[in-house]
């Protein structure tokens, strides 16, 4: 059987998600054996050419040129997976979506005219159809492996979609929201990170984005009882997955 051709593409991002793939270290050579890694600019000179069975996308869309590029990549690929907060929901840079880009540019660069940037940082799925999204800032690399292996077997990856709290309880970590009144985003955040923060007594700050149907307002009501202001609450969700949390928040305003 011909090896599936895979391409790894980068848009506006920190490179961390691509690095997550490289961080598979011991399995990486295995991946190279079962896939034909035909494009992966971070680690290979291979030029962009041909059709891809899988395109793995990192990064958000934030320039006109990237809009064209992502359309091109979509046209040359059968199955598209976006990985990481930037690709799935615009990333931390989507914070500029709530501010004026011109103002942003001015504050950073002395001659802003030469900088090309869209007013917003967009998820890949706002420009092209995405077949599968792997959330997280960064996504857990074992989930990347599961996703790729699942592709070979022709199935959806076995990645649960429930709240982080589920994973937290399963791991037997004492809940810091209930026992310490910490403003943990676990109840509204997707599981998948391995409960890194609560296991360090740190409230979850939402790397994996909102879980489906997250009841953000109800959690904010709890946080307010702990003494946090509305502004502080908003800042808690306005991070790497700001766009996704806000969408979920305003969607949930109308009851399901």
């Amino acid at each position, binding site marked *: 059987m011909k090896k599936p051709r895979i391409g790894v593409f*980068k848009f506006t991002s920190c490179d961390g998600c691509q690095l997550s793939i490289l961080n598979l270290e011991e399995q990486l050579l295995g991946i190279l054996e079962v896939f034909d890694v035909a494009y992966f600019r971070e680690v290979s000179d291979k030029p962009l050419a041909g059709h891809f069975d899988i395109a793995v996308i990192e990064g958000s869309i934030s320039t006109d040129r990237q809009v064209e590029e992502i359309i091109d990549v979509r046209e040359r690929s059968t199955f598209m997976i976006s990985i990481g907060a930037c690709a799935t929901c615009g990333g931390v840079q989507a914070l500029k979506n709530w501010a004026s880009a011109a103002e942003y540019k001015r504050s950073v660069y002395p001659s802003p005219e030469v900088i090309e940037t869209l007013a917003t940082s967009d998820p890949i799925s706002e420009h092209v159809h995405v077949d599968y999204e792997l959330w997280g800032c960064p996504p857990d690399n074992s989930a990347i492996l599961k996703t790729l292996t699942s592709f070979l077997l022709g199935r959806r990856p076995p990645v649960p979609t429930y709240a982080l709290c589920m994973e937290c309880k399963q791991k037997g970590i004492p809940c810091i929201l209930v026992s310490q009144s910490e403003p943990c985003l676990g109840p509204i955040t997707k599981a998948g990170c391995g409960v890194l923060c609560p296991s360090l007594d740190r409230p979850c700050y939402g790397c994996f984005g909102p879980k489906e149907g997250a009841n953000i307002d109800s959690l904010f009501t709890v946080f307010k009882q702990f003494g946090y202001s509305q502004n502080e609450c908003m800042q808690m969700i306005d991070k790497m997955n700001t766009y996704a949390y806000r969408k979920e928040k305003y969607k949930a305003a109308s009851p399901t």
Partner: protein
Amino acid sequence: MKKRIRIDYLSRVEGEGGLLVEIKDGGISRLNVSIFESPRFFESFLRGRPHQDIIDFTARICGICPVAYQMSSAHAVEKIFGVDVDPQIRLLRRLFYTGEWIESHALHIYLLQGPDFYGAESAWTKSEYLPLAKKGLHFKKIGNDLLSVLGGRPIHPVSVRTGGFFGVPKKKSLTALIDDLEKAYEESLHAIRWAAGLPFGGIERDMEYVSLRHPEEYPMNEGRVVSNRGLDMTMEEFFGALREHQVERSTALHSAVQRNTTMTPYLVGPLARFNLNFEMLPPEVKSIIRETGTLVPLHNTGMGIIARSAELSFAFHEAVRLIRDYEEPAKAFVEYSPRSGTATWITEAPRGMLIHRYELDDNGYVKACTLIPPTSQNLGHMEKDIHAFLQKNLEKPADYLKRECEKIIRSYDPCISCSVHVLVLKRN
């Protein structure tokens, strides 16, 4: 004669950049390392944010060296708040950094730059290179394992906070890593020989290299800023002497040190650190370097791989030492109360000095900030290197020049994702 060298997308570097050179009438009329990585405006959206967000946000500037960002920002904020951390916290931070140096250096040596010496397009296309790729991945994994124990995960670790850590590791989960680290250290010593024996092109150039220097140790989180041309300043003073300007077709700013009226581009990174702090390396590393006949200081940026390999060994060695010395502190962080102020802090990221400066308000919210990553400090220098190389080789075919230019750029281990985050200072 008119020649154009154009690299649309640099490969085997972090982030998106290119190179454009125009050669006309026997001279270089245009030379521009361009960066089209789209800016992400961190400095803008940090404004009005609580101080912990600095650590979590700036980490997201770079997936390769998030720890560096976390370190520079934690130190800067602590300086403003007047926080003194426990010696064990200091130790853990240094250990954290060794993990990132290992991970980042192994990646660059074996997966990014290494293939250049074997004419390979990637670490896995040539079977003769595969053993080296495997070794690199193995080293890298050890660095990542260390990062995971300390921070939960290697990319954007979650444990760092102002005043220390959210949680500190158990001694036994760290000592469990010693075996691997020690073995890797032994292997890495051989690898220095390998690196020193590589066929280097490029050219030697007189240059100013800058790094931190610490009286007792190879620099990471603390020290004064020094150079081979007599610079010896505090972090704040260095920040005052820094000048940056924007160049056309680039979203990054170039840096230089100002002395009186002259502006000198300078070099930061492993080569600079190695040259300026050679004496602080473990004796075995030093003697192997000497045995290979390598002359210190290095004056060819192409030889950065030797410095990087020496630092990789050092990092393994240092990690073992730190783990042995580690005692679980009673508290993972020190209490503090936020207050207003401004501070600069510099730490040694794998790619060189990472400069952070923050102005915080009374509640510890960000009023203004400046981030100057190593790659942007190196850009001017990089262009000069390419210029010098081309000047000597103008007659060679464009293809060859293009390949060589790309190698020069790669030897800097540029991190273009980082380099777009430079804020110009309004200074009189």
